[in-house]
């Protein structure tokens, strides 16, 4: 039974992992850049949501759209001012530009908000529903539901809107897209802003069960990379599968092994997948 419980918990947490990682894969898919600072936008999303809770009395989950908006604006600025200049630079320089961004964002937060841990209190924090012998934690369920809604909204946007189609066209062939009259620079901005916005959204919905502090991104960075590599770097559908898989792997390894080893299994799976199937489990969409 505890086995089923672990799988259930893993899936609920994994849904959130999927949403926070979609941004990473989206940015790579559209412009071929790996954003090492992605997890710092998660931290920003959590802070926005925390302040909305502390000063406006807003539930952190309801503040998620606000987190999305703040990160979206910041991402728009970062892409336009920094990333856009590096699109043709060597990949090593691209990596280190985003590492620089990581340092700036993390220490900017440390400078502005201090190093203390902050958490929220909500009425549903400790509640759980029972499903036969299984228990479903309410904050996990809410975060999962919000992430699901967000994922579906993105899917709908990418499928049906002109922006979504133009962005996919840019990902496939920037030159051809440009010839068709698509402003690719705008698409890059859109993809980056949307990507970091989604991650920040994910940060807000997990606030009821995760504490926020300036270096919280470090907890999530390898996890996010594992998700996107499992699913195939650049594949949005893959990120969903990868997110759920990572959630379940984490929950199961916690069941059988000491908690300190939890990430070890994640890293080993990560290296193994890279070595055996670098295009990801879902397949090559790029």
């Amino acid at each position, binding site marked *: 039974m505890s086995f089923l419980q672990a799988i259930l918990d893993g899936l609920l947490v994994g849904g959130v992992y999927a949403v926070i990682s979609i941004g990473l894969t989206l940015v790579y898919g559209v412009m071929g850049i*790996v954003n090492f600072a992605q997890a710092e936008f998660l931290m920003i999303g959590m802070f926005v949501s925390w302040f909305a809770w502390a000063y406006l009395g807003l539930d952190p989950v309801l503040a998620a759209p606000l987190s999305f908006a703040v990160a979206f604006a910041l991402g728009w600025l970062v892409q336009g001012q920094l990333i856009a200049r590096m699109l043709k630079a060597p*990949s090593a320089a691209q*990596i280190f530009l985003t590492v620089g961004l990581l340092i700036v964002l*993390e220490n900017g937060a440390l400078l502005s908000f201090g190093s203390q841990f902050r958490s929220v209190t909500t009425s549903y924090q400790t509640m759980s529903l029972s499903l036969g012998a299984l228990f479903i934690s309410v904050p996990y369920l809410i975060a999962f539901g919000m992430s699901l809604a967000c994922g579906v909204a993105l899917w709908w946007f990418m499928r049906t809107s002109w922006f979504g189609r133009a962005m996919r066209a840019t990902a496939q062939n920037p030159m051809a897209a440009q010839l068709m009259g698509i402003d690719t620079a705008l698409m890059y901005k859109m993809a980056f802003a949307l990507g970091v916005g989604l991650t920040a959204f994910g940060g807000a919905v997990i606030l009821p069960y995760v504490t926020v502090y300036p270096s919280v991104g470090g907890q999530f960075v390898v996890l996010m990379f594992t998700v996107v590599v499992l699913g195939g770097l650049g594949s949005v559908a893959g990120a969903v599968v990868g997110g759920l898989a990572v959630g379940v792997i984490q929950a199961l390894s916690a069941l059988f092994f000491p908690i300190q080893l939890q*990430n*070890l299994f994640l890293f080993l799976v990560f290296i193994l997948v*890279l*070595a055996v199937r670098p295009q990801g489990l879902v397949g090559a969409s790029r």
Partner: protein
Amino acid sequence: MKRWMLVVLVIVAAALLPLALNPTGYWIRVLTFTLLFAAMAQAWNLIGGLANQTSLGHAAFFGIGAYTSTILLLKFGISPWIGMIAGGALGGLAAFIIAIPTMRLQGHYFALATLAFGEVMRVIANVWTPLTGGPGGLSVPFVPPSFAAYSFKQLLPHTYIALIALIIVTVIFEVIRRGAMGYRLRAIKENPAAAEVIGIDTTKVKLQTAVISGVLMAMLGTLYAQVAVFFDPDTVFSAAAISIRVALIAILGGVGTPIGPILGALFIIPVEELMNDLFSAGAAGLSQLIFGVILIAVILWRPRGFITVFDALIARLSSRGVR
């Protein structure tokens, strides 16, 4: 033709510089770490520059070196000089083991896989308490100062050991770069498929380079342990403080060139120290924030490294008809 004279001059200047600094002061420490990080970045440069594989996991080998010599000293009283060789062997073995599954990967994929490998080592060192002391870290025990015991009263001998290490690693880098292996690596870098066709065993060459780089990095780990005296898993296996920093130093200076890592270290380490010195009294995070801003500015200004400043300068001079 007079290039070797310039090199000798620089080495002599570097050898005299520590004597000009206060032997118990702060700046000799900065100089020692600058030299050490330059050597580490040069070891990284073998795989990152010559083989064009951006490794973000070199802390794995570095930490192995630091732990091996310190554990041998603590448990068996073995001199760190011998421990350094043992650590180098283990570092080479680790580089071999990680290279097998990752060598075919390129660009971002290779960077991510090696990053995860470094993290694996960090987790293991944190968990394997009986051997590593776990999160509590290890202290290098005090032994009566002597060269054979690699123990000194002052920092100065450490500074010179770091300088000699930098020279040795740079010479190895140059020998490989100019030798047959360097040509093979260049061929692989330009066109892997064509290199394969003309009979280069690309996997073997990359593997050899990775192992040499891993051995050197691990040996430098011992040097670090002996200077730092205390370390824990989160310092020597740190992705940010070791893996990413050494790659950054090489890239900022000019990747694939022998001078690049030295230029990079001369910039990064003193700037970091200066920022800490100037702003550590201020709010937490300020010094690192400014460091990050400088980093971004430098990358935007010179995505291919500082070394291009000299290229541009020479190009300008020669176009003006000077020389």
